[in-house]
């Protein structure tokens, strides 16, 4: 029983989430109690699980199960290295979001109706944490799928929390439909490989890979890729994500985009690297192609958004693409027989998963603070918040730098690792396939630069210069608990970036579990100060030294300026001689992205409409109406036809749906006979 503390802490964490959930439901008549209990238990659960996850990650893995009468459906858990890693990521996010929610939800207590709903919000919030933590640790496909479905349903309830708005309801419906397509794919996939393994236990499934015939393997791959891909939000099955994530309450959006979509990544890592055995090359190529498409289209669509939360949601699609680049490369290296390179690519993939979770959660919380104090998430109505909400703005800036992959923060390190594994791929893969890697690398560079442009826009328009509306003008800084929640994550961005070379050894157990080798010795140089690409002379970087040198080199001019050049005069901004430079003269988010809208016009198919109203001369307009939109390509080209087809089939099906009980009995009888005939046949 020497594993008791880890197991106990983990189960204690689950219990805390469950208690948070129940108390939220019980205390729904007293909003203040529901909020305190819900957030408090959420925080407690996160801390307990975080400790147990860290213990399992650094020590040895733990397994246990709850006895069950039906052996196929055992409730067994395993806190192996990979599960522990995802649990730690979940706990970090859950802890900061719970702290944030103390302050964020306090505003909802006042309204009668919203107060009553607050209890339900904490109920579903904790249920989401509980089910997600089971998803990451289940070691039986049956339990995994139950938890998976619970996550989807809790997510649905949270997305449609504001159920009076049409936008929320239709987003929720779309989310629900996509979740069920996804659950269906996973069910079939697990049934397919479970049939060969003779069990649904993950240990047995690991052995099943070798038993699958190539067509079965391909079938399983496609089912899982579609299923997990919908969850992760890869293009083209992403359409629910930018609709659903922004309409949820901001603390929930942070969890949805931060960690819930990572369940898809978790599933892919488990299945593609463990359950499918040695995968043929085309699967890795397929993953890389989808990854590059998601990354580029995700960021391009993000650029066109001026709803702050939708913009962030599109960036999740982009980052899922970057994460999958690592996974695809790992699959190909594994097939080609380079386990060390595969280990390196797995590290790139999983490290970016954690990093994206941290900074995306931070950015959503920042957007939530803005929404909390200005009641708008439309960037065109914001501005000037840097002076009014200095801390929120600082934390958002940290997140923006991190997500743009700029050194020395954490996003840079994982993108660097991704680049290095792609470059290694050129040498490892013979033939034209090798050429795919550097091309993917250069497209990753395009993605990174576009993301930087997008976050210059997001931060610059939202937080800098002059406020564009009275709401932004009168914005107040968020309460301390909200700032504390963001502060933890902003600190994590720095710690994981600058301290990356000391953090990377954590992956030893994970690479051992997934690809069977440890990359520990190759990863760092010079007493852990420098991250190395794993091959001799390959490449190295040290975010710690970069940060130190930036501080030193920046301190010299800063000191110089402070000492000698005290003559600083604040003056009016140059207004071209016209009197008064107001917010209406500022560059807007739409204008900022205009050049890119024109460059990528073939993709966006922009449409605009300008109506000018004038009295005497067209040169002196009384009012101008401007409208611009881009074509939702995927909705129009893929989903509309599918929807039309489903409609058409449903109409035809109505012919047999007479509504008469006799007819239905006949159908059941015929079906039974057919099934029996199938069963009897040898």
């Amino acid at each position, binding site marked *: 029983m020497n594993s008791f503390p880890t197991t106990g802490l983990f189960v204690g964490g689950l219990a805390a989430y469950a208690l948070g959930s129940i108390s939220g439901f019980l205390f729904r008549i007293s909003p203040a109690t529901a909020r305190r209990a819900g957030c408090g238990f959420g925080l407690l659960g996160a801390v307990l699980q975080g400790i147990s996850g860290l213990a399992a990650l650094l020590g040895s893995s733990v397994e246990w199960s709850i006895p069950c009468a039906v052996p196929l459906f055992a409730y067994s858990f395993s806190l192996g290295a990979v599960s522990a890693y995802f649990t730690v990521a979940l706990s970090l996010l859950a802890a900061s979001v719970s702290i944030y929610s103390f302050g964020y939800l306090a505003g909802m207590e006042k309204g009668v109706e919203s107060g009553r709903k607050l209890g339900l919000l904490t109920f579903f919030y904790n249920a989401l944490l509980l089910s997600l933590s089971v998803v990451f640790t289940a070691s039986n496909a049956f339990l995994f799928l139950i938890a998976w479905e619970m996550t989807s349903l809790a997510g649905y309830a949270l997305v449609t929390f504001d159920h009076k708005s049409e936008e929320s309801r239709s987003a929720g419906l779309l989310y629900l439909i996509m979740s069920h397509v996804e659950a269906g794919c996973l069910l079939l996939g697990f049934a397919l490989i479970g049939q060969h393994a003779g069990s649904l236990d993950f240990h047995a499934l690991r052995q099943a890979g070798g038993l699958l015939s190539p067509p079965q393997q391909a079938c399983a791959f496609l089912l899982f890729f579609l299923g997990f891909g919908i969850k992760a939000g890869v293009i083209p099955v992403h359409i629910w994500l930018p609709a659903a994530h922004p309409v949820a309450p901001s603390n929930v959006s942070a969890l949805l985009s931060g960690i819930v979509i990572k369940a898809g990544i978790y599933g892919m890592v488990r299945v593609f690297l463990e359950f499918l055995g040695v995968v043929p090359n085309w699967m890795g190529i397929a993953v890389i192609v989808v990854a590059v498409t998601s990354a580029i289209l995700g960021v391009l669509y993000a650029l066109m958004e001026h709803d702050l939360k939708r913009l962030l949601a599109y960036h999740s699609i982009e980052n899922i693409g970057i994460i999958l680049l690592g996974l695809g490369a790992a699959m190909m290296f594994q097939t080609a027989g380079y386990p060390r390179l595969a280990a390196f690519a797995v590290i790139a993939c999983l490290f970016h998963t954690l990093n994206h979770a941290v900074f995306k959660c931070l950015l959503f919380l920042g957007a939530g603070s803005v929404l909390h104090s200005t009641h708008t998430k439309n960037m065109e109505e914001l501005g000037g918040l840097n002076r009014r909400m200095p801390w929120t703005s600082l934390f958002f800036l940290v997140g923006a730098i991190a997500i743009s992959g700029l*050194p020395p923060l954490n996003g840079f390190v994982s993108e660097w690792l991704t680049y290095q594994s792609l470059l290694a791929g050129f040498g490892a893969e013979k033939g034209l396939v090798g050429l795919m890697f550097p091309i993917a690398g250069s497209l990753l560079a395009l993605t990174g630069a576009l993301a930087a442009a997008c976050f210059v826009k997001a931060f610059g328009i939202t937080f800098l210069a002059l406020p564009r509306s009275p709401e932004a003008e009168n914005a107040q800084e968020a309460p301390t608990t909200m700032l504390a929640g963001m502060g933890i994550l902003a600190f994590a961005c720095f710690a994981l970036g600058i301290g990356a070379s000391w953090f990377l050894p954590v992956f030893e157990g994970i690479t051992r579990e997934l690809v069977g080798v440890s990359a520990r010795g190759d990863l760092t140089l010079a007493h852990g100060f420098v991250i190395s690409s794993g091959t001799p002379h390959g490449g190295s970087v040290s975010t710690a030294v970069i940060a130190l040198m930036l501080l030193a080199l920046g301190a010299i001019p800063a000191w110089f300026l402070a000492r000698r050049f005290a003559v600083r005069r604040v003056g009016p901004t140059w207004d071209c001689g016209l009197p008064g430079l107001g917010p209406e003269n500022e560059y807007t988010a739409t204008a900022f992205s205009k*050049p890119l809208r024109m460059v990528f016009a073939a993709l966006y198919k922009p449409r605009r409409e300008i109506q000018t109203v004038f009295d005497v001369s067209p040169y002196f307009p009384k009012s101008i109406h401007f409208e611009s939109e881009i074509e939702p390509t995927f909705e129009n080209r893929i989903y509309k036809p599918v929807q039309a087809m489903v409609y058409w089939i449903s109409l035809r099906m109505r012919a047999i749906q007479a509504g008469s009980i006799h007819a239905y009995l006949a159908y059941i009888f015929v079906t039974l006979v057919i099934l029996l005939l199938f069963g009897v046949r040898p």
Partner: protein
Amino acid sequence: MIATVVSIALQLSLVLLLSPLVSGIIKTLKARLQTRRGPGILQPYRELHKLLRKGMVIPESASWIFSAAPIVVFSTAALVSLMIPMISAAAPLSLFGGVLAVVYLLGLGRFFLALGGLDTGTPFGGLGSSREMTISALAEPAMMLAIFTVALSANSTNLSEVAHSAIGQSWRFLAPSQVLAFAALFIVLIAETGRIPVDNPATHLELTMIHEAMILEYSGPYLALIEWGAWIKQLILMTLLINTFYPFGLSTDMGLLNLATGCASYLLKLLFLSALVVLVETTNAKIRLFRVPELLAVAFVLGALALISTFLF
């Protein structure tokens, strides 16, 4: 340790002193080619001296980002200059950041500069930021492809390793892949340093400005830092181009004679490249903003061809 500190100090002072000179040389050469007298090659030093003594006017609407941007621009450029080999093949901080760190650190400086442009609240600032981020985003993949070509043939992303490998095969620059990659990177150099045909460094014409629009509100020492940072960045990109493709004379040890040869050949190569830039600037007209993506697409295609030809030859 001491050797590293000394080499950092030496290279840093070289960069700080040399970068305004290169800009002065380009300006003067350009003037001579256009049969003007030009301001003389020491003009950038005089400008720095003047700007550093002046007071500053900070726009009312600006926040701390406006003041932080010049410092970030300057320090990132200075740091990057320590990661690339200039006179000796061993760059002082080569181990701590290769070519990816170079590109992303320059990106960090640009990120803050663009924010500084937006922070002023003028339409010019926003216009400049928007254009700068667009052009740099489109230049990035071409730059990476060209760099990957070199990095892959050297099997390393550390610039000192790349230089060492290039010294080993001194005729490699004639290989098709190297020629194509050089051409791609040269276009990127033009775009990134804001030269004709992409941007006109001498213009203050409202609708054609890119870089100048972004920094329109900066004055005094802040402007000096930004200008200096831009000159350092120009020197960095030029050095990257000459020392990875034509590593002749690059010193491989710390012998005095070798360092002197390295220094002389470095200056000579810089002069040649400056002349090439001037030639391109003088013989071309500035193209419309929305033709720039086409130019950068050419650079991307050249980069891709370079990569394919490493594969073929």
